[in-house]
């Protein structure tokens, strides 16, 4: 189970990479392993705005479906279009080519509410 150091995490198993006032968001290795092979990803469009923990998309495997929630408030700058044809990228490379959206953050202070690697690892142990 890979948990990169530089990322922040949520209890809904999303990860965030914050760079200045922008963030890249995806789902964690744990989440993709639980769901199995992804077959479909539904993402918002650039320009859509969300408040923290709003649902912004849906990921589907053959036998399960899960809403994805935005870890930080902001406006979508870009959605990962390659997932439309290759949802399997979320399985193969969840922290890289499997990213979901890039966001321009509107509330920098929210970052404090997210978990770092250690906290998320503890959280995973608890829920197991």
């Amino acid at each position, binding site marked *: 189970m890979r948990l990169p150091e530089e990322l922040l995490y949520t209890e809904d198993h999303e990860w965030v990479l914050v760079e200045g006032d922008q963030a890249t968001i995806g789902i964690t290795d744990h989440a993709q392993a639980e769901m199995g092979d992804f*077959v*479909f990803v539904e993402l918002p469009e650039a320009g859509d705005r969300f408040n923290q923990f709003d649902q912004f998309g849906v990921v*589907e495997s*053959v*036998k399960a479906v899960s809403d994805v929630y935005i870890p930080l408030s902001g406006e979508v700058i870009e959605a990962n279009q390659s997932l439309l044809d290759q*949802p*399997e990228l979320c399985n193969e490379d969840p922290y890289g080519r499997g990213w979901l959206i890039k966001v321009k953050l509107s509330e920098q202070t929210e970052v404090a509410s997210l978990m770092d690697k250690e906290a998320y690892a503890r959280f995973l142990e608890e829920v197991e």
Partner: protein
Amino acid sequence: MVKPLIRDYGSPGRKGYSLPELDIPAGELSDYLDQSLIREKPAGLPEVSEVDVVRHFTGLSQMNYGVDSGIYPLGSCTMKYNPKINEDIARLEKLSQLHPYQEEEQVQGSLELLYELKEYLAEISGMDQVSLQPASGSHGELTGLMIIKKYFAERGEQRTKVIVPDSAHGTNPASAAMAGFQVVEIESNQKGMIDLAALRAAVDQEVAALMLTNPNTLGIFEKDILEIAEIVHQAGGLLYYDGANMNAIMGYVRPGDMNFDVLHFNLHKTFSTPHGGGGPGAGPVGVKEFLSPYLPVPVLSKDQARYYWDYNRPLSLGKVHAFYGNYGVMLKAYAYIRALGASGLKEATEHAVLNANYMKARLKDQFELPYQENSLHEFVLSGIRQKEKGVSTLNIAKRLLDYQQYAPTIYFPLVVKEALMIEPTETENIKTLDKFVETMKNISREIEEKPQLVKNAPHHTPVRKLDDVAAARNPDLRW
């Protein structure tokens, strides 16, 4: 063994059908219709002969498996034998060649039969009134919940929530949502039953109903049922009975006597009408008297000795089916109930429960039995021990197919990991059950000795394991 598509047998101009010559003077199509309304290109249907059609579909049937092929122990599905005489009765010309808009006077025989069927279903379930209109189990659920909604609307009560246990069939929350309710899920307790404390906590002035299957999807009878009913009723809510498991209780206990207010039946389960590879079924609803004004229109009624459809029901929820429901299915259920009679129905239940408990007794050492409570017509095993060896419940199910036996319901109820939900029904005998048990034990041994064999199952079916992921990623849904 891959069958070509029916279209692939075709040859331009080949026909499988003939009509009498048109015996009236007729012109060109364009004499009757504007050119823009006439199809330019014929629809791409097959061009095949009658023999082609017969061979193609006979071939397809040989790639299928029905109750007539062997045991079909799908939990919650009650795959019992479908008596052939019922098929004959449903095909009697004078019963089947009836148009739904024929005058009531022309169909009194059928209406009487349907009326009697309603009375039998009311008696079996302990309810007061029955509507035969819903065409499937989940259609019955939807209808039942709409009745509940209408009832509270008429009383001016704002009740927006429906409580569903976590072990419920997926149709329960889906039907509740479709009827416009918000779904509240409650967790089962460690015995696999309704947790009374959780129920008390969930029940409030906004709760319209609790949906319950009894025995529940674990096959366990909710013995606190009267207390459950009281908790819900005291808060002003109603109790809905999901009739999927009625085969476990006929002649022993009635949902009406357990204080349920509304229920649906699955005629294609309990009452032995064939499932047709996914339908048609029928899902009549039964209600207590105070809910009868809300039943869907028309209501089959009787005036002296004359039967008629009553449309004058101002409080009715409306219609859920264009006509009266799946009539052909009702004929078969009627025949079944008449063939068995009161004592036959009770015996069917007894043997369904006997068979399930016999299988459970014979399988519980080999497989994990997550809930020890007494169970009735079905029971749930878990494949977690086998999973530890790297073989999943899905693999076990697929391996069963290699032995020409259908698999149980798997991964349901959701409260059991690696669930195998087994319902043999009363029409199987001890030999068939023993064979199934031996097969399960064989597979268990195979998991110890040659797990790859099971993991790569099935080996002997018309096709090997199919790629679900590719099917969903690149949908190919038509030719």
